[in-house]
Every structure is written in structure tokens, then in C-alpha cells.
């Protein structure tokens, strides 16, 4: 479990998703520590279905706290290959471990190098501070 607020090996979006490249060439996606902090205790999580395809920026899921519901957006274009089935029953995994056990889904990219357009940890830190 990482305790860093903005791990340096991840890439980020302006809408507070993070993305990590796995060894297999697919990518894991979740929402950042900053996002879970803003939302508060999560009570519901809507995940995409395995096999569904998305374009970068599409609505791909929803995280809902007592306070607010927030859309989750696809950070890159591709096909969903796996979802974290532990989340619907335990949405607070995202609060407790947003970069580890709180991962949301894995995606296999359809466009090469799209991930390079995303923010690195320093660029995201500036957004997270606003």
C-alpha cells in the first residue's frame, strides 16, 4: 500500500484519475488521493463492463459519496480487460488505498502513445493544490 499522495511513477488526468502501466502492456486506472479526499466516504462505485470500449475522455464509471457523485473518465482510449470486483461491495477501498487495493479497472490501449499526453506527478501536484 502506497502512502504517497501523488506517486511519481503514475500519470494523471486533470479530472483526477491516475493510470499505471502494468508489465503485461495493459494499464490500471483509479482515482487519486486528492479525489477521494474531496469526495469523502464512498458508498457506491459504478464500474465499466469487461469488453466495453471507450475513447479518451468518455464517462467510464461513477464514484458516489454521501456528499456527491462524480463521473470517472477514461484517461486513454481502449478496451476494458478487467474490473476490480471487490469495489462494489467495499467502495471505501478507494478511500483507504486509492492507488493499491482501490484500483478500478484495467484497460488495453487502442491508440499508441496516448498516455504521453497525460500529466506527470509534478504537473498533477499543481492541479491538486488549487
Amino acid at each position, binding site marked *: 500500500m502506497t502512502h504517497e499522495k501523488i506517486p511519481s511513477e503514475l500519470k494523471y488526468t486533470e479530472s483526477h484519475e491516475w493510470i499505471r502501466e502494468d508489465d503485461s502492456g495493459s494499464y490500471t486506472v483509479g482515482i487519486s488521493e486528492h479525489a477521494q479526499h474531496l469526495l*469523502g*466516504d464512498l*458508498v*457506491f462505485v459504478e464500474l465499466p463492463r469487461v469488453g466495453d470500449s471507450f475513447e479518451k475522455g468518455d464517462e467510464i464509471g461513477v464514484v*458516489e459519496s*454521501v*456528499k456527491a*457523485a462524480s463521473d470517472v473518465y477514461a484517461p486513454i482510449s481502449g478496451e476494458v480487460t478487467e474490473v476490480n470486483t471487490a469495489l462494489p461491495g467495499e467502495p*471505501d477501498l478507494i478511500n483507504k488505498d486509492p492507488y493499491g487495493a482501490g484500483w478500478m479497472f484495467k484497460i488495453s490501449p487502442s491508440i499508441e502513445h496516448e498516455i504521453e499526453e497525460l500529466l506527470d506527478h509534478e504537473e498533477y501536484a499543481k492541479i491538486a493544490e488549487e
Partner: protein
Amino acid sequence: MSLKMTILHPEHKHLNARLVEFGGWDMPLHYGSQLEEHATVREDAGVFDVSHMTCVDLRGEHVKNFLRYLLANDVEKLTVPGKALYSCMLNEQGYVIDDLICYYLGSTFYRLVVNASTREKDLAWITKHAQAFDVTVTLREDVAMMAVQGPTARDKVHSILTETQQEAVSALKPFFAVQTDDLFIARTGYTGEDGYEILVPEQKAISLWKQLLAVGVKPIGLGARDTLRLEAGLNLYGSDMDESTTPLESNLRWTVAFEPTQRNFIGRAALEKQEQHGVARQLVGLVLEERGVIRNHAKVIMENGEVGEVTSGTFSPTMGKAIAMARIPVTQSTECLVELRGKPMKAYIVNLPFVRKGKVLITSNGVA
């Protein structure tokens, strides 16, 4: 305009509370996890800083007659010193100015605790009407207020009291209060659990707070306060009723004492007229079976196509479902639709409360 802070504000900062604005005050939303805080009050004991609320002392020879005129409930019912009641304060049109608790402390002395967000409005209204009865109105800015709630709350409070103080409170019945030394302790609350609300001189507030934490009472924020009170079916002024609604359409008819008929109180005539014509709207509970959280002001669509509105919506941690209070046309239906993020979803119409003393009163098909 900068936010007001209670005397306990440094404690909230010290505990790393997430602070938010509420009614002009900088208050703790939570101290880490709103859901955990909610569970703590249902299962153990938690303490809320409610010092932002408004304590008003009323004194005078005619104070009882004044209150029998000012309030929709009848203080004649308060026959024993220390006894309290819950009442609405109405305007001439029968609309709700605020809801409050009134404590009978002596033949010439009553105490009101009213809401934080309505302080100025309430004081102006009370003072204006007190003049005809020669009642003095004193805003108590020298006291802090804490609510300790949960199944173990009373025991934990007793453990920090002196023997004399313990004797004074251990016989307290629900909705009774007592002054013991410089502590005013009332067996009242806003969570559906047993517990005390305590008024203490400001300069002793931090010490009392720390003593409570030291015996295992956990700090609880306003986030959990809202989910707890909604589960308990307790109205929130400004959401579930306001100056455009009467108590008859706010699930508060039980707080209006129409008997004795000779008692004239502000708003009586308007309420009687509304009853004669037939009250058209009611405040009910809603339970969502599907996943999602019901939000304030969401549209409610009845089976006959008429519409209503969610007045307070949230997620019930005890039930694991979304719940709400909604104002809808009077109906026999037990189902309706509520819009969640633009999508109509099925909800059950139920009587309030949803939860009392930790037990869920609503069964799986929404019927109590």
C-alpha cells in the same frame, strides 16, 4: 465576511477535522471518516460540538403565557421543572420560522435552544413578541454546547461527573434536564440514540471535551449528524420545512397542540383553515432499493403523474441504502419514482423514522 468559530475550534483543528461552512460557522464535517463516525454513534458514544446553536433564556412573571402564545406546542404540558418539549415557532400564516426545544426551569424561567442558521431571525421575532408580556430575552453567548449520543453515551458522561452531579443526572428521564453545578444536562438529542446535550460555561468547554475524549467518546462531525438525524426521521429546518411550509405538511402535526381550543397561538388560525380545506401535501420517507444516493431537491414522480420534491436526501449507513424525506401530494401509494442524476428510479414511500435506537424499522420491500 469571515466565518464564526466556536470555542472548540482549536480542538477540531488539532484533530485534523475537515472543516466546512455551516450557517456562517466554520464547523467540522468529519474527523477522518463520516461513515465510521455514524457507526460509532449507533454502536458506542460520540460527541458533537453544537456550540453554534442558539441558547435563549426567557424570564418574567408572564413568561408561561408568552410561550403559550409564541409556540405551536403548549408549554402547559411542562408540569415538572426540568421537563422539555419540541415545538415549532410559526408566523401568522402558519409557516415555520424555526423548530426548537423549550425547557421549563422555573415559574418565571424557561430556556429555548434554537437553530444556528436562524439565530438573528429568531431573536428578532422572540424579542418583538416578548415585549407585550414584559419578558426579558437573554442570548447566552457565554455557554458552549456539546451533544454526547449513543448507547454508551450516558455511562461515559457519568464517569467524568462528580458524585453529586451523577446523582442529579442518573434519574433524568428522556426530555428532562437538570442544572448541576455549572453544567446544564438534558437527556435530549438529534440522533435517535439516547444521550445528553450539555451546556457548559465557555471557559470550561475545552476541558470537558478533552475529558470526554479521554474516556473513549469519539468526536463526530456534521456529516454524520445529518445521516443520523435523517435515519431517525428528525426534520432539519431549512431543508424539510421553512417559511413556505406549515407543520401540517412537514410531518410535524404531532408537535402542534390544538387542544385546549381556547389557547390562541401565532399561526393557529392559519393552520385550522388549512386543515378545514384539507392538507394537500405531506412529508414522507423514501427508500431506494437500487444503488445510488438521493439528493436534495430531486424530483419525485407519483404514480398518477403528480410531482413532489426531495427535501433531504442521503445514504443511510445503517441500512446500506439511499433514504430521503420528501414532500409529496397526499397519497395512498407506497411507491414512486425519484430522479437520480436525471434518471427516474423506483423508491418506496414509508413512514418516518427509518431507524430508532439502532434498529432498522423498514423491511426489505420498503414497508414498515
